[in-house]
C-alpha cells in the first residue's frame, strides 16, 4: 500500500478552501494568519496527537507555470495541503485529531468547502478521506519505531553520553553501582514530550 512504509502512514490531504471572504478577510488569508500564530513546539496541536512524527499545512494558491512551450493554467480554488507522517492506522489518527486538537482543527478547516465540524469525529474522518490523495511513493528513513520510542531513544542516548562522561576514571565497582541507579532512572523516566525544542522558543 503506497500510503504506508512499515508502521508509518503518509497522509496527503487537499482540502478546497472556500472562495470569498469571512469578515473582510479571505479564507486563505484567515488560515495563514491563524497558522502563523500557532505554536510549533510541545504546545502544537500535533504534539497532542502524539503519534505524529512530522506534519505540515500549506495553502496552495495555484499551480505553477513553468514557461513556454508549456501551457499556462490556473486552479479555480485554493487548496489547503495537509501532509502528515504518523504511527498506526488512518481512522484512529483522524479521529484523534478531531478529538484531541478540536479547537485548532476547527480554526483551520472551518475555511474549507464541505467541512462538517469536529463534533462528530467520524464525520470529520470521512470528510478528510474524501479529500485524501493517495500517495504514489512514500519513503521513511525509520519506519519501524513509534514517536514515543524515538523520543525515548533520544533521551537514553543523551543520558548514556552524560553517564559515560561523568563516570570516567572510576573503578569498575563504582561504575557498576552508578549504572544500576542510571538504569532505574532511565526505566522510570516520564514520557518525553513531543515537539520540545528548548533552544527555539516558538510563539
Amino acid at each position, binding site marked *: 500500500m503506497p500510503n504506508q512504509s512499515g508502521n508509518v502512514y503518509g497522509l496527503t490531504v487537499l482540502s478546497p478552501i472556500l472562495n470569498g471572504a469571512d469578515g473582510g478577510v479571505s479564507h486563505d488569508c484567515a488560515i495563514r494568519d491563524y497558522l502563523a500564530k500557532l505554536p510549533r513546539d510541545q504546545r502544537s496541536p500535533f504534539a497532542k496527537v502524539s503519534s505524529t512524527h512530522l*506534519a505540515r499545512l500549506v495553502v496552495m494558491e495555484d499551480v505553477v507555470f513553468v514557461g513556454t512551450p508549456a*501551457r499556462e493554467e490556473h486552479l479555480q480554488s485554493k487548496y489547503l495541503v495537509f501532509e502528515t507522517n504518523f504511527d498506526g492506522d488512518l481512522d484512529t489518527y483522524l479521529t484523534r485529531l478531531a478529538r484531541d486538537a478540536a479547537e485548532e482543527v476547527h480554526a483551520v478547516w472551518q475555511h474549507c468547502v464541505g467541512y462538517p465540524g469536529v463534533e462528530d469525529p467520524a464525520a470529520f474522518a470521512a470528510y478528510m478521506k474524501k479529500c485524501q490523495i493517495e500517495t504514489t511513493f512514500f519513503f521513511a*528513513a525509520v519506519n519501524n519505531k513509534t514517536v514515543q520510542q524515538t523520543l525515548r*531513544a533520544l533521551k537514553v542516548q543523551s543520558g548514556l553520553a552524560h553517564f559515560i562522561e561523568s563516570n570516567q576514571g572510576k573503578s569498575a565497582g563504582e561504575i557498576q553501582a552508578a549504572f544500576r541507579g542510571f538504569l532505574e532512572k532511565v526505566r522510570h523516566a516520564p514520557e518525553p514530550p513531543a515537539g520540545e525544542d528548548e533552544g527555539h522558543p516558538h510563539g
Partner: protein
Amino acid sequence: MTNINGKTYAMNAITPMNAFYTPILKLIFFILGHVKPLQADLIQLSFIHFARWVVVKRHQFPRLSEKQPQEQLHYDYLLFFSNFNGSWNQYIDAFADVLSNGLNLIWRWSARYPGARPVTDFKRYIGLVQFDTDYYYTAYPRATTNDVKAAHRVSAALEEFARNSKDMAPAEFGGAYLRLVTQVQMDLGATGIGPVGA
C-alpha cells in the same frame, strides 16, 4: 511562512505533467516501491526523515460541493514533499550528485524539466516549482535523521548490556562496560539546536 523547524526543512514542489505520461511514472514508482535495492541511494543519503511523491490527476482535485467551481486542467500534477536536514542548497546538491539518474527518471515527464545536471539549471527549476510551508511541526526538532538512527542503536545496545551484565562481578562488568562504550561511542553525538541558516 516557515519551511524550517529545528533541524528539519519542509520542501514542497509541484510540476505539471502531460497526462499521457502519468501511467509510465506510476509504473516507475511501483517498481521503485517493490524492488528495495533501487532505494539504496535514497537510504544512504541519510538526511531525509520522510519524503513522498503524489500524482494528482487533472480531474482528481477534490470537489466537495456543487458550488465549488470545477477544475479545468490540461495537466496532471506531480507533488513532492520532503522533510530533510541541512540547508536547501546542500539538499539539492546532494540530491543531484547522488541521485541524478533517479531524479531524471521521476521528473523527466514534467514539463520543462532541465535534468538534474548541471545543478544550476536544476536549482533554477526547483526554485520555480517550489512553494512555501505555512505551518511545520516535528516531534523531535533537535534531532537529524542520523541522530534518530543512532539513538535507536544506542538504546538497543544499552538494553542488551543491561540484560547481560545483571549478574556480573565488578571485574567482568568493567570489561563489558568498556565494550559497550566502544560499541556506542560513534553514536553518542549530542543533539541540539541547528546551526543558523540550516
